[in-house]
C-alpha cells in the first residue's frame, strides 16, 4: 500500500494551512517566547532573529535567522514552526527546509534578495506562505507555488490600517471577479497580472484557492477580531505580543478574540487589563523607502 504514498503534494501543503485556520501565529525570537506562545494557544510560531519592530529600528539588511535560533525554537515547541527567508533567496529557503521548519514565509519583512523574481516554490517539499496587498499579487504568489497567503499590512507598526486596506482590497477584487462575464475575465487577468486559470478559478468559486491570513500591524484582541470579521482565515501577530507589557496575557486574549471574533462580550472581557500595548507608528510617518509592503513584485 505504501507505494501510493506521496509527500510534498499540494494537498498536504495547503492542508496544513487549513489546519491553522481560526488561529494565531506568533512571532518569537527565543525558545522561551516560543513556549509562552504555545502555552497561550498559538497554532504556530514564526521563528525570527528580531521582530519586525526591531528590524525597522535597526535598519540595514535583514536576513534569515541564525540556524541556532531556529533549531532552539523547533526543539522548544510541539506546534508547527515557521521561518522567514528573503524574497527570491532560494538558498535561505533550502537551508530552512533542511532545518525541519514546517512552513516558510518568503517575506517582505526581510530585505529582498532579488528585485524581479520570487522563489520557485514548486521546487520545495516544505510549503510556503507569501504576502500580498491585492488579488493579483496573491495569485502571482500562488502561481509560483505558495500554499498559503497573508495580506501584508505594514509590519512592525502596531497600526492595523494597512492590514485593513489590503484585506478589503482582496475581498473587493474577488467580489468584482464574481460579477463579470466570461470574456471579461481575460482582460481581468491582464489587469491583475495573474494567470488566467487562477483568475477564472476565483471568479467561479468566489474565494482564493488557498488559506489567507492577515498580518502586519495587529496589536490588540479587537484588531484580530476586526480582521476576522473582514474575512481573513486567521492572523499573524508579529511585534504586537512580545513588544507589549504582558505578552502571555495578551497572547491568550488575542487567541480567544480570534476564535470568538463575532462575540463582542467575549472580546470585551479578554481586552481588560492587558497592560501596555506596543507603541504604534503612523504610516504617514514612515518614508516610502522604508515601507515593507512595497517589497515584492
Amino acid at each position, binding site marked *: 500500500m505504501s507505494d501510493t504514498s506521496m509527500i510534498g503534494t499540494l494537498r498536504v501543503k495547503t492542508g496544513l494551512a*487549513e*489546519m491553522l485556520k481560526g488561529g494565531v501565529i506568533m512571532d518569537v525570537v527565543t525558545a522561551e517566547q516560543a513556549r509562552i506562545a504555545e502555552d497561550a494557544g498559538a497554532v504556530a510560531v514564526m521563528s525570527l532573529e528580531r521582530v519586525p519592530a526591531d528590524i525597522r529600528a535597526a535598519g540595514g539588511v535583514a536576513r534569515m535567522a541564525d540556524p541556532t535560533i531556529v533549531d532552539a525554537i523547533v526543539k522548544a515547541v*510541539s506546534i508547527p514552526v515557521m521561518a522567514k527567508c528573503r524574497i527570491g533567496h532560494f538558498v535561505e529557503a533550502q537551508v530552512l527546509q533542511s532545518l525541519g521548519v514546517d512552513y516558510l514565509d518568503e517575506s517582505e519583512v526581510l530585505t529582498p534578495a532579488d528585485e524581479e523574481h520570487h522563489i520557485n516554490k514548486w521546487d520545495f517539499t516544505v510549503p510556503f506562505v507569501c504576502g500580498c496587498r491585492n488579488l493579483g499579487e496573491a495569485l502571482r504568489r500562488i502561481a509560483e507555488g505558495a500554499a498559503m497567503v497573508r495580506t501584508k499590512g505594514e509590519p512592525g507598526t502596531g497600526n492595523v490600517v494597512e492590514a485593513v486596506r489590503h484585506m478589503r482590497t482582496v475581498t473587493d477584487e474577488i467580489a468584482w471577479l464574481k460579477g463579470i462575464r466570461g470574456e471579461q475575465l481575460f482582460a481581468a487577468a491582464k489587469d491583475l497580472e495573474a494567470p488566467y486559470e487562477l483568475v477564472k478559478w476565483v471568479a467561479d468559486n468566489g474565494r482564493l484557492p488557498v488559506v489567507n491570513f492577515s498580518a502586519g500591524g495587529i496589536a490588540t484582541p479587537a484588531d484580530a477580531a476586526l480582521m476576522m470579521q473582514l474575512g481573513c482565515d486567521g492572523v499573524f501577530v508579529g511585534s504586537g505580543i512580545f513588544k507589549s507589557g504582558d505578552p502571555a496575557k495578551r497572547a491568550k486574549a488575542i*487567541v480567544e478574540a480570534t476564535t470568538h471574533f463575532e462575540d463582542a462580550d467575549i472580546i470585551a472581557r479578554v481586552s481588560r487589563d492587558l497592560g501596555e500595548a506596543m507603541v504604534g507608528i503612523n504610516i504617514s510617518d514612515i518614508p516610502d523607502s522604508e515601507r515593507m509592503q512595497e517589497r515584492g513584485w
Partner: protein
Amino acid sequence: MKIGVLALQGAFREHIVSLEALGVSPVAVRLPEQMTDCVGLVIPGGESTAIGKLMETYGFYDAVAQQHGAGMAVWGTCAGAILIAHEVLDALPEQRSLDLMDISVRRNAYGRQVESFEADLDIDGLDGGDFRGVFIRAPWIESVGEGVEVLARHDGHIVAARQDDLLATTFHPELTGDPRMHRYFVEAVVGR
C-alpha cells in the same frame, strides 16, 4: 438530525460543508451550550494544543463528556482523535484529553511537515474501493483497548478506529471531497 462541529480552531468549515452535502444540518459550536440537542459532534483537525486550551477556558471538557454520556456520538479527526483519546503520547506535560475512547495516540508520529503525505487506505465499513488518506503532521493510534474495532491501517499503524459511538481517524476526509467517511459517521455511528 443536529450534528455539531467544534469550531474553536482548525478545519471546521470543511466538515460543515461535507456534512451539508449529505443533507445534515450541522452547527458550528464555539460555546458548550451550542451543543444542546446534538446527536453527534465532530472535533476537527487543527492544533490539538490550541483547541485543547480553548476547550479548557470555555468549559468543554465536562460538557462534551456529559453529553457523550447522554448518548452524543463523537468523531475526532487528527487533532480531534488526540483530544478524545484515553492516552496521548508525546503530549505537552499539562496537555489534557477528553479521555473518551480507549485508544493510545502518538502526536506528530510521522515527524514534521515535510513528512506529511497522502496514501490510499482500505477502510473497513466503506464500500467503493480505496479512500485517499491525507495525513498532515498526523498522529497514529499506537494501541487500542478491548472493544475498539480497528478500521484501517497504513504501514502497520492504526489510522482509523471505532468504539461504539466513538470514531477516530488520524487523516483528513474533509479535505478530499470523498463523502464516504462522513456518511459512515452519520449513518453507522450516529445512527447506530
